[in-house]
């Protein structure tokens, strides 16, 4: 650990705001990219499943 206390860690030697804004924005970009892709994948798979189910009218496939 480079810092002696948690307050020092937050303060980053008076550069705290800059460092945290930079890291925050990076985290925001990465997380939103991840969640957008994941929700796309989920809704995409869901609609594919519905399309397949609606094509197959046999009751055994509806489980």
């Amino acid at each position, binding site marked *: 650990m480079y810092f002696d206390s948690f307050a020092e*860690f937050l303060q980053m030697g008076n550069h705290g705001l800059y460092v945290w804004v*930079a890291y925050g*924005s*990076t985290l925001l970009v*990465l997380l939103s990219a991840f969640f957008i*892709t994941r929700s796309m994948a989920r809704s995409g798979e869901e609609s594919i499943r519905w399309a397949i189910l609606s094509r197959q009218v046999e009751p055994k*496939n509806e489980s």
Partner: protein
Amino acid sequence: MKLKQKLKEYWHKLGSPRWFYQITTNWVTFFGGSALLLLVTGFVWALAFAPADYQQGNSFRIMYVHVPAAMLAQSLYIGMGVAGFIGLVWRMKLTDVAIAACLPLGMVLTALALFTGGVWGKPTWGSWWEWDGRTVSTLVLLFLYVGIYALREAIPDADLRARASALVSLVGTVNIPIIKYSVEWWNTLHQSASFSLTEKPAMPAEMWLPLLVMVLGFYCFAGHHVLSRMRLEVLTRESSSRWVAELMLNKNAVDGTPQTSTTDHGKG
């Protein structure tokens, strides 16, 4: 002779959507897991354990997110160019999905690199924006991305959109070295690149090791991102085929499985 045959077989398989989907099942898990591990390690290491720069102080830590974002942004553009080349020459349609996946991520990362560069520059050099070589190169990269984005928005037909964006990203990739060199000529007063894979970095190991972890984490993240999108596209395109039907219906409900990529392993 045998090797050549093997390679040829491999190449033909690459065009098969089903084979692509199956082989990437493990890759996507690997990239996702590695990205999570590396990025968490990297963030903690860079923020709390890496030493501060003796001149710049703690604002130096911004480098650990700025440099990977800029590197990945540029790599993604080159990746688009390579995908475009493959798409144009071998008429492989899957490459357009790769371009479509790289494009928004690369665009946002370029903007992020410019933003974090400004946030780093303010406390370190006293200004949010400097018209120096690397800022200009990155800004041009952003406009290269925006150009393809605008082009894609303007073409409704999927096949033509794919070919147009493949062509433009290929032309852009060919031009990137020329643009970079001319911008360097324009301003030779900028900071030299602090990290590259070929040269030994001037930083001490305790400073560049976390950077390496971050860079690898970013690249794994991109690998996961692009592959996931490509896999979804394969499923959508092949949704009328039997293997997709079997795969989708045998799978557990998606919301019940947090790690979707491990459950859809090689069905059908």
